[in-house]
């Protein structure tokens, strides 16, 4: 997908996520900085304590070593958190080749989810139910864009606290991905116009009205799949995407 409108839309979507991503990185970063300082200070103190050699000094040194060990473990968790966010960003910024690739769609879905979650954190509980899938032949970056669109929409449909459920299943020779939110749902008018380019219910500056039409084009035109949804005002919306495991080959 390289039309200027699609690119702009994608940039807007990533921009909206950035604030959450910054938060997601700053928290573990704060921990790592702090731990580094405490560990260096502790190491400075341990040398003289060992030289002193009295039982009290040795006990104190032992305590400092234990503190350093537990902070080292905290650092590891913090680094892993940052790495997960960076991995998600890398996944998003990669460009698809001309030919479809065989990929683990569950993995891609999880990477995208991690990015979107930066925005949901603390507010929305995400449930994942990922079924066993074969490798799917597709343009993974395009599909990531679709997942991100739907996840961001789902997050924005929820005021305050709520729930998003992500589910994947193999159904015959098709992979079925559903993304359900407990948000406000769509009015009948919004449902009728959801895939219309330029139609948005979001405030000016927040929605481009292109997310769903672009998603539909990616799923239906590029992957011979289908995208549809069910929605009830006040009860939430569920999107269903179906992608064939194997793309049809053009006749040899």
């Amino acid at each position, binding site marked *: 997908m390289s039309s200027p409108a699609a690119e702009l839309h994608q940039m807007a979507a990533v921009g909206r996520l950035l*604030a959450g991503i*910054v*938060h*997601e990185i*700053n*928290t*573990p*970063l*704060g*921990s*790592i*900085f*702090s*731990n580094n*300082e*405490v560990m260096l*200070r*502790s190491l400075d103190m341990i040398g003289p304590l060992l030289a002193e050699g009295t039982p009290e000094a040795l006990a104190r040194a032992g305590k400092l070593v234990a*503190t350093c060990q*537990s*902070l080292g473990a*905290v650092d590891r*968790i*913090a680094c892993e958190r940052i790495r997960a966010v960076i991995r998600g960003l890398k996944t998003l910024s990669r460009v698809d080749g001309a030919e479809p690739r065989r990929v683990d769609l569950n993995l891609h879905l999880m990477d995208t989810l991690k990015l979107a979650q930066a925005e949901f*954190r*603390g*507010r929305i509980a995400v449930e994942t139910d990922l079924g066993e899938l074969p490798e799917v032949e597709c343009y993974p970056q395009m599909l990531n864009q679709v997942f991100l669109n739907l996840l961001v929409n789902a997050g924005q449909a929820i005021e305050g*606290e709520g729930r998003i459920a992500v589910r994947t299943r193999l159904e015959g020779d098709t992979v079925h991905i559903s993304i359900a939110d407990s948000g406000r749902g769509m009015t009948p008018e919004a449902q009728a116009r959801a895939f219309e380019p330029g139609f948005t219910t979001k405030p000016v500056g927040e929605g481009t009205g292109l997310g769903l039409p672009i998603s539909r084009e990616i799923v239906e035109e590029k992957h011979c799949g289908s995208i549809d949804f069910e929605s009830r005002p006040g009860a939430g919306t569920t999107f269903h995407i179906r992608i064939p495991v194997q793309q049809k080959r053009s006749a040899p």
Partner: protein
Amino acid sequence: MSPNGAQPSIMIVDDEEMVIASIKAFLQLETEYAVHGFTDPEEAARFAEGQPVDVAVSDYLMPKMNGIQLLARIKEKQPEASRVLLTGHADKQSAIQAINQVSLFQYLEKPWDNEQLLLVIQSGAERARLFRELRTKVEQLDSANSSLKDVQKRLLEAFL
């Protein structure tokens, strides 16, 4: 240690366990404060209802309750406690809201600087102690005043 012998009590509230672990380790190395960490803001609010708190440091984005709501609840029960927001969400809106709604003592951003955090917590604890002392003095003045009035009243009754 404050002069009455009680250790200043510091609350750290963040839904991220790692933040609590880091700040706790730092404060334990550098200070004699009693440090209480909470990942659940509800639990933190209940804690503040039961015992004195000198400084409450809270994250902003948390499940169930955001940092401003939590600090507002702590303010009701512990008006003297110094309230600090420590947030990774560099968002002016929340800063302004916090300062206006809960008369924040300090607003800090993640990643935080330990030296600065220590300075804020030390001055916050000192401020809380002074407020408590002031309240005790005012209460003493009040009671002295009312006993004086009582004496005056009895004097008048005796002589008139």
